[in-house]
């Protein structure tokens, strides 16, 4: 039975991926409770719509909502994703894949990459990638779901999706509306706050409609209509560390086989993404306007395309950073309203997911306890900060100095949290651990080694294994990975066989 202090109404301001993910999750998770959920969006206001690659956590989100994978994939033209290929980040001509999985098995509590460092020192030329099932599978265009047999190599990875974020939002809209979410078409022109508390009481639309709610979720994008314009939460600008402030996005035709990975290619003043979906390829150029003009950035993007454009490029501006308070009074900012970090590691949708998950964990009552809000802000703030450091690593773990941007990063003063991490790695391949954060040890290993930051020394414990024994063990690991990949079906075939094919089934591509 609802108590007087219980939240009885939620208004989500803004559609797009953030708004509809919030709506769908709240509709599913609050089902059966007397809480009315309304989402207001305006067809006049475009959504950013460029976030198309995801992280494995999205599967937990979908599963929690009871979303069928094949159905979702058909609706969103999705492909599978085993990781991200980074090109030209360490040196021009380099490439590596940051996989969703580890590199080799831990032995005697020592992670495999330490043994690999010893192997390398002894003259072995195998790549660390060769010990990663998801990397080799991705390179060979193969995919399967992880095995439940924990002893199998095929269990040592996760996977995500590459999908059309606009179609995902549309899919979730259908999901949410079926579960009672009311969609109101309209543009918010005024925010009414309580005179005493400053809480948001209503939002008023262009047509005069007033929407009231106990809890507001601000998914209005960069503007932060409620969290910033009304409540003036403030913004921590991180562009000193991550200076990219523009993006151009353009779709191209599918060209050749569908690869189960996203590509991020470093450029002179930013980087270019390539995300293969079933029906098209998403491309974009993220860059810093201090280092390149918009026209040059456009030209670089077009020159880097491998297929004809399907539409005119869309342009975006942004400031990297985070809202000082993601949750203030009775407003919670999720998605771009909460902050922005460039999608170099596909974190945008994950940050939306985190925002929703933590809101459900600390779901308020009408008292909006200060401690609840402080705890939410602490958790989300930690997520943002740790992702920031990981993204920054890509820019600073480099040997490039061939443009103004790269030289800028070489001279950059880093946050202590990152500089200590880099120093520990460089000295001895030590990874400073944390528990709460998106990118754990294997991710850091992938970027450090992928971008040629090889530690000066390795863990002394690996010396307990002779080079001969280690070489034999390494060969065995590589052989098991290779054998497992050979058993793995081709990616496009798997999409078809798993029922996830939309156009593929029709076109027989």
């Amino acid at each position, binding site marked *: 039975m609802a108590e007087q202090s*219980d*939240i009885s109404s939620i208004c989500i301001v803004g559609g797009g991926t953030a708004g509809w993910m919030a709506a769908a999750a709240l509709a599913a*998770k*609050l*089902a*059966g*409770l007397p809480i009315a959920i309304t989402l207001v969006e305006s067809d006049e206001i475009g959504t950013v719509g460029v976030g198309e690659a995801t992280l494995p956590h999205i599967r937990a989100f979908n599963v*929690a909502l009871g979303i069928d994978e094949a159905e979702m994939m058909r609706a969103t033209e999705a492909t599978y994703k085993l990781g991200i290929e980074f090109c030209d980040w360490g040196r021009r001509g380099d490439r590596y894949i940051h996989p969703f999985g580890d590199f080799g098995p831990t032995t*005697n*509590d020592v992670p495999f990459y330490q043994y690999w460092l010893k192997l390398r020192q002894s003259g072995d030329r195998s790549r660390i990638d060769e010990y990663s099932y998801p990397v080799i599978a991705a390179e060979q265009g193969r995919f399967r779901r992880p095995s439940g047999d*924990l002893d199998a190599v095929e269990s040592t990875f996760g996977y995500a999706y590459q999908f059309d974020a606009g179609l995902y939002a549309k899919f979730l809209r259908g999901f949410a509306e079926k579960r009672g979410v009311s969609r109101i078409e309209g543009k918010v022109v005024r925010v009414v706050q309580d005179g005493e508390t400053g809480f948001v009481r209503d939002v008023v639309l262009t047509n005069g409609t007033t929407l009231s709610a106990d809890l507001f979720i601000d998914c209005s994008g960069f503007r932060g209509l409620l969290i910033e314009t009304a409540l003036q939460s403030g913004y921590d600008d991180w562009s000193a560390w991550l200076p990219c402030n523009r993006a151009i996005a353009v779709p191209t035709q599918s060209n050749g086989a569908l690869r189960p990975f996203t590509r991020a290619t470093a450029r002179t003043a930013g980087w270019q993404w390539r995300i293969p979906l079933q029906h098209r390829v998403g491309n974009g150029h993220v860059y810093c306007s201090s280092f390149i003009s918009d026209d040059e950035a456009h030209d670089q993007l077009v020159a880097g395309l491998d297929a004809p454009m399907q539409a005119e490029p869309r342009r975006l501006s942004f400031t990297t950073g985070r809202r000082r308070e993601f949750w203030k009074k009775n407003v919670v900012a999720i998605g771009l309203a909460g902050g922005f970090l460039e999608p170099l590691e596909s974190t945008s949708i994950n940050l939306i997911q985190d925002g929703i998950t933590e809101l*459900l*964990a*600390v*779901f308020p*009552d009408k008292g909006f*306890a200060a*401690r*609840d809000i*402080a*705890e939410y802000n602490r958790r989300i703030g930690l997520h943002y900060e740790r992702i920031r450091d990981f993204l920054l690593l890509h820019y600073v773990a480099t040997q490039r100095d061939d443009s103004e941007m790269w030289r800028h990063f070489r001279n950059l003063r880093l946050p202590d949290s990152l500089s*200590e991490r880099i*120093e*520990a790695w460089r*000295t*001895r391949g*030590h990874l*400073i*651990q*944390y*528990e*709460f954060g998106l990118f754990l040890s294997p991710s850091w290993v992938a970027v450090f080694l992928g971008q040629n930051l090889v530690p*000066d*020394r*390795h*863990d*002394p*414990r690996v*010396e*307990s294994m002779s080079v001969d024994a280690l070489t034999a063990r390494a060969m065995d690991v590589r052989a098991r990975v290779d054998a497992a990949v050979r058993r793995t079906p081709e990616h496009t075939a798997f999409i078809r066989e798993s029922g996830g094919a939309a156009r593929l089934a029709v076109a027989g591509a």
Partner: protein
Amino acid sequence: MTVATLARQLPDTVRITLAEIDRDHRCADLFYGTVSGPGSYAFNLAAGVTEPALVLGSSAAFSWGSKYVHWAEGGRSWIQCFNLTLPVIDGVLMHQYLVQQGMTRLDPFLLGAVAGSRGTFAHPPRSPGAAGQQPLARAEYGYHFDPASHARCFAAAVPPRRIHHLKGALSRVGVCDGVITGIALDGADMVTADLYLDCSGPSAELLSRLDPAWLGGRALQISADDVAEARLGPPVRSVSFHDQGWAAQTPLRGSTRSLTVSDATASCNARGGLSASATLGRRRRAWAGNCVGIGHAAGIVEPLTPAPMMLLERDIERLMTLIPVSTASMTVEEREYNRRHGEDHHHAMRFTRALLETSALPDSDFWRAARDTPDAELEHKLAMFAERGLLVSYDLEPFHPEDWLIMHFGIGRRPRRHDRLADRADAKRVRRYLDDAAQQVANAAAALPSNHVYMTQLERYLRQDPRK
């Protein structure tokens, strides 16, 4: 423990010297308490001490945890047992349903608590998929131990001729420019090394010469008496308070160890047993220069919980991940070791301090001194649970959310409200689920043998089976 771990994990090219100072460590080691956590099993294996070796080579017994007698609100008792994460039901943590239902006790759902109260024990199964299928599979266990016989087990695990073993009184410690340059035992030459590990206990014979600063101040004394027992007692340590301190009874194989803790200025009543004094707290730097303080040389927490042994194990595990790669500079290792040591110590102190937030404890000098002002993070943890049953966690805490949950419920902390998402479920179905779950635990506990029978049979098996 340190030497055994080093000997097992480091290559033979690393020379290990044990300079055993002539001193009876049995007294100071009392501050390690008598109970360890579930992490000990893996730690011991990594040091070359298998569980059969521990059972046959020491007086160790299995432990579900500690019973805090009359410690909770209203004078109730509870068993602070070890347990894997409780089930999450439709996205809601199980304990939220208890709060919703007005159920005030968590122990019926914890096999360690129920079996502990019945005095029964068996090893939890560890087959894949077992967790969640059987109540026993969610239970975890640690050990009851006597530090002296525990140490002997590890000494026996050191491969012969792997270490250079010296014994004597410490006569000289060379220090120059912030590093140890060597040590000498009576009648022997100076021993030099690249890295010195100070396991000398609270006196920190080496580390204190590099950094004497100690952060802490509450001085306690501890005494131990052992009473011979023909039959092994229950797999639960019993902790009770009195005006001037607290006492613990720990069933070991062959005896029961009684520990008494009081203020350092109180008169000591050890009846011919062991006793020691120490000041709680930690060294400002656990690693200074080329010297690392392990265990009590770097930090001491009150053995009210398994924290002392957990911290000792963590010290050694942390050391192994940071064995220096160069003698020229250990700055990176020192910084990282000290950061994590400080955090582990803080978290352990917080957990111990949280145990004192109960009106059942007397308002005496001892307990007033023990209840110093909680820090902001502990206040936040306690407040969030009190308000809404939310478990706030920080990175890599030694005590898991389940440990906190068991403590909160055990002490009688009742959240003001529950997770609203729990209201989606039909209340009658929830009640049936919870009743079934409790019944399963009760049935499982009833099927277990008594602790002494289990241990007797295990010992017999281990002594007969040559493969142990």
